[in-house]
């Protein structure tokens, strides 16, 4: 079973192929959209590649949920994610760094949850790898 570093290296290589970026550009904290220029269709491509690379199944909306809140006012008010919305995020995306997002939970910044580190943690969980 690969360790965290090996998983990170493979995730990084996957992103190099999917997003046509240089390996040096990729850091654990890099956001897929903001830093690495991913567009919506790239997320699906990344999922396909991760499945092949790691031999796992990634159900739709598990790694990159498309619309967690679905316009529910209990989850989002005045452009900010509510405490209930944050709980929903924690439940749906236990592998994401919600603590950082919580400091300024603007809905528009939700894409910043999608980082290289997040994918690595998700894969770790899937493979049952030990840190």
């Amino acid at each position, binding site marked *: 079973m690969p360790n965290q570093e090996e998983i990170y290296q493979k995730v990084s290589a996957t992103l190099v*192929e*999917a997003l*046509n970026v240089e390996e040096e550009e990729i850091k654990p904290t890099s956001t897929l959209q903001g830093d690495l220029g991913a567009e919506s*269709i*790239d997320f699906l*491509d990344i999922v*396909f590649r991760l499945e092949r690379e790691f031999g796992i199944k990634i159900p739709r909306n598990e790694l990159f949920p498309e619309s967690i809140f679905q316009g529910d006012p209990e989850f989002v008010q005045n452009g900010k994610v509510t405490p209930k919305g944050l709980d929903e995020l924690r439940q749906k995306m236990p592998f994401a760094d919600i603590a950082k997002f919580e400091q300024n939970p603007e809905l528009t910044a939700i894409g910043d949850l999608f980082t290289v580190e997040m994918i690595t943690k998700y894969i770790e969980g899937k493979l049952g790898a030990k840190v």
Partner: protein
Amino acid sequence: MRWIWIDRFLNFERGKSARAIKKLSLAEEYFEQHLPGYPIMPACFILEGLAQTGGILVGEANDFKEKVVLAKITSARFHKEAVAGETLLYDVELLTLRPEGASIVGKVFSIPPGSDEPNADPLAEAEIFFAHLDKSRSQQLFGDHNFVFSGELKHLLGLAKASAQRTDG
């Protein structure tokens, strides 16, 4: 101009792979302008042929029920020019097929005029990613009609079957 960039399927293995052929004739319109005096097939048309071969492979895997659209050319490399008089072979393999979309990897080989054998090295290679249009959204926009596989593209497979029967018979 007809937007069909393959002449016929030679092999078709459902959900796995396909091989299509395209003969390049100097009578084709684009050769006149690309390039005057030096007729080579534009690289984007080579890619379109590969995408059509792959797109039909992907569409047929779901009995043409999905609207398969080219979403992304993940990578494409062109090693050699395609010249009038040559024949192109499009070899495509299905990498992934999921409800949301599919990806294929393909190689294009050229058969020089007067030869039956393709060159060993590919003329071009690419990885192509297709999306299935979201069912509910595309139905709103386009109705039930599958505009991707409406006519000639789908007909190509039938043509391959018909010609195989003719050869057998």
